[in-house]
């Protein structure tokens, strides 16, 4: 890699994508985008305790159970990924 490559927009993007999970790119599919949004949302719910409490009241569950459910949903937040077209 040449020294100038470091300032190249693509390598900068790659660096960002490696460092910050969820940074988008030109070939991002709708599904990948949605998965990211959902995971971010669940992480935010878990991080904001008042929000967890709000969900817990709505569903009449304990806050601990609600937190566990949200963490579990981070595995497949939008269901199964679609079949790849290019395969």
């Amino acid at each position, binding site marked *: 890699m040449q020294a100038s490559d470091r300032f190249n927009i693509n390598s900068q993007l790659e660096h960002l994508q490696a460092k*910050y*999970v*969820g940074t988008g790119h030109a070939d991002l599919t709708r599904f*990948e985008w949605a*998965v990211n949004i959902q*995971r*971010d949302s*669940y*992480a*935010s719910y*878990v*991080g*904001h*305790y*008042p*929000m967890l*409490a*709000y969900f*817990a*009241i*709505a*569903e*009449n*569950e*304990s*806050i*601990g*159970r609600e937190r*566990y459910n949200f*963490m579990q949903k*981070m*595995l*497949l937040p939008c269901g*199964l*990924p*679609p*079949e*790849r077209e290019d395969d």
Partner: protein
Amino acid sequence: MYLYSLTLQQPTGIICAINGSFSGGKVQEIVVARGKVLDLLRPDDNGKLQTLLSVEIFGAIRSLAQFRLTGAQKDYIVVGSDSGRIVILDYNKEKNCFDKVHQETFGKSGCRRIVPGQYLAIDPKGRAVMIGACEKQKLVYVLNRDTAARLTISSPLEAHKSHTITFSICGVDCGFDNPIFAAIELDYSEADQDPTGQAANEAQKHLTFYELDLGLNHVSRKWSEQVDNGANLLVTVPGGGDGPSGVLVCAENFVIYKNQGHPDVRAVIPRRVDLPAERGVLIVSAAMHKQKTMFFFLLQTEYGDIFKVTLDHDNDRVNELKIKYFDTIPVTSSLCVLKSGFLFASSEFGNHALYQFQAIGDDPDVEASSSTLMETEEGFQPVFFQPRKLKNLVRIDQIESLMPIMDMKIVNLFEEETPQIFSLCGRGPRSSLRILRPGLAVSEMAVSQLPGVPSAVWTVKKNVNDEFDAYIVVSFANATLVLSIGETVEEVSDSGFLDTTPSLSVSLIGDDSLMQVHPSGIRHIREDGRINEWRTPGKRTIVKVGSNRLQVVIALSGGELIYFEVDMTGQLMEVEKHEMSGDVACLDIAPVPEGRQRSRFLAVGSYDNTIRILSLDPDDCMQVLSLQSVSSPPESLLFLEVQASVGGEDGADHPASLFLNAGLQNGVLFRTVVDMNGGQLSDARSRFLGLRAPKLFSIVVRGRRAMLCLSSRPWLGYIHQGHFLLTPLSYESLEFAASFSSDQCAEGVVAVAGDALRVFTIERLGETFNETAIPLRYTPRRFVLQPKKKMVIMIESDQGAYTAEEREAAKKECFEAAGNSENGNAEQMENGEDEDDSDPLSDEQYGYPKSESGRWVSCIRVLDPRTMQTTCLLELQDNEAAFSICTVNFHDKEHGALLAVGTAKGLQFWPKKSFEAAYIHIYKFKEDGKVLELLHKTQVDGVPLALCQFQGRLLAGIGSVLRLYDLGKKRLLRKCENKLFPNSITAIHTYRDRIYVGDMQESFHYCKYRRDENQLYIFADDTVPRWLTAAQHVDFDTVAGADKFGNIYFARLSQDVSDEIEEDPTGGKIKWEQGKLNGAPNKLEEIVQFHVGDVVSCLQKASLIPGGGECIIYGTVMGSVGAMLPFTSRDDVDFFSHLEMHLRQEFPPLCGRDHMAYRSAYFPVKAGCNRWRLM
């Protein structure tokens, strides 16, 4: 519009709690995080929890941990928050504050997926801390001490693993070997790529050990092994000689012991008998207790049952893991076992409690063990138990918690001086209606009638060294009554006091003699019974007296002051005379400072609206040192010494300042600082207290002098956590008061009012509200007040619970079963019966049994708040639950006010929101509003989440449809509707012909109803998608709203647009047909924007003091109450924004979150200032 944000009640819910010894030594303390507030609590000798310190950190605390360096005596606090920084705090006992020892930045701010702060783990030997995020990132900091024994922190070491979700982390106790951290991880990378779903099914949680190599300064993945897929929590097991090391993995239904190179030891968590089979049992909080010879764990399930877990081990081998039923308490967010034998339980919802251990669960009880674990074809054989009464724990104190506030209304229903706040709090069986009144709670100890109407009361000790008071002296218009305090309080006549004259003052003077000042003289009663009388010259009478223990000043009619001092022999000697220009209105002498012979200052109030400070020094005796003019003649004066700066617990190290307080005849309390040397007055402040001139009295609160001000209501001025507070007491108005101390009551107040003598104590210092709680059955949702009939009507609903009858039947069944001794402790049940036969298992303690999630229970309740009696309770049948309520007066006056309730049947949120049917019920009030009778029930096609009266009709938000109904004989009649709302209508407010509709996801829409064309249409909407949780109409063009993310905002329609619409004969209808940006033609502007940091569940416009300006009051899910006050002048706005700016710079928030960024967490903050605690 600019608003000033003021928190009236700090959040009362607790997110997490840790215990340790933060002030050093053997004292056990608890640090609790209440969202944006960090508190330090300590149980006192009586087992009452005292709040020592409370700090608002302007950020969201997510995790707390405590650690202790090897050999150190005190614990440090590590805070994981949304600041993107790790902060280590040290409690400073002397200054009573948290000192920030370290603050290390590692990432972006905010609660993000990959920014650490969610989890904290500590090496049990205090050598390292790990801070983790929900996904990928984990950082390890090495903790050490430098040559000066100060705590040092290293740069972060990364233990990241991408595409991995972390469920829990904890430290592994491995003695003084390299520190190890354990984490439950789940890799999702393959599941994201595999469209067949096979990878997702096979995704397996792993328990991973990360080793910190202290020599290489490097973190490596040491060991990783599959773990049960329900794993959610890790607990450290003691090691290094104290135990087998390793971790307990809490998983759904199981607890598993795991360690590197050790086979799994697994045991099932016992299940409640009545738990539906499809529900798991999850551990939500855990605590470990370690003594020299043994250790055990307390694990609490999501249903509230606590299990004691013990490990049977020889050295490093664990042979057996036992889970024994311990007790059941309400579900907690954290459990703290204190070394002093207490258990602090911070409840998820409702009051927190402090329990004392009666036993540690050594008696036989239901037990699951790894050695008896049976695996069958359907899985592991479950173990069942039935919850029982508390056996091992006994509750000794509780802390009130309003969490969650579901709805709130402010109204003066009881016609008191200030309005009451009615709030619906709590959840399920622990819910309540709480009536909050600003003021401190008072507990009345005795009330006794006196033979006449007393004018004054004093208490005196016989000797300066006595602990308790000896006499209560009551003065009437023409007599004095002396009561002696002993086992009982009774009248005595041998006290030496003159009882045929009224008294002006009674006090202890010198070391052991008493003084009674009456209009014609001073009576000095020596300890041996000798009596010296000093008579006034001529026919002049004494009008006012001021005295301390060694000095007396009397004012004679006409304005002459005579000054006496107690000399070495205990004699009262006249020292000086001074002629004032006119009559004296009031007098006071400051108490004698420690180690001095006299106090230097005498304050004299005159009817010419002045207060003078006179010197009592022999050099310049009776010289006027300073003069202050006031707005009205002073009625009462009091010198009060206050430790103004933040002091330690005793505050002795800090110079005190002397304040002169004056109660003026116009009801104002006037306070100035007195210069200790020269007696100059400065920094005058005044505050209106009530309609009567405040009379000031010195009393003792927590061993320090405090001030009681008696105006049309009593106020108490005292020092709390280093701040001087002046708060009203929730008590009737009093005439005269004195401090009172006896065997039964160490710090009380004796007061007279009317013809009664009252003794009371003041409780729960530092609280803003005094509350009365009325228990409810299910989670309260909304309520309405009927101001005329003074009734409260509320709806309560709960998902996944059984109805009252089903619960009764189940309970009966289970007690019959218990007779067969299923738990093996029939004896205990028998004991339980004779103690409390009526309520063997209170739901408040044990929670309602869970049913399938699709089932609902709900009721409508009419309650009389004065008698706290429920006059009518209608339980809804057939899985129907109520969600909205309003009172409505229809056009035809036949029925008068009716009650409309919106309900849904079989509502489900998951997997997709669905319901079987929805209705609007119309009820008629009977028996003076006390009872409801169903008029009719109308089926509708969506869940009615909002109802509102509008022009003699009923407006209903039914799903995404706004519909106008009129009353028919058999059902409601549709009149008009608008289907253009985006999602679901959750709030409707009306004002004149405008309708302000709040949508669940899309903020506000302004509508208009055209009567002639019978048409509803939207003419303006908001541009920001807001998940609305609360709404309040402010004025014709403005509404206030709060969204799910904790923001409060005001949306306003600009004046010209509003005028245009009002003037337009079509009402903007032509324009409306055009539309703009997929919505209404006009857009609202957001004029206020403020991040509260807590989900606001209700907004209310009210004024809390009669005649005060209106403000917006909000209540939040975390149980805090706050107010937003509009500024009235530009100057105030400038002043406060500058003050806020300087405070931001000079005093940044404790946990490293930038204040401006916090207030702008979702939207840039606009037009809001907020109060800082240290002002």
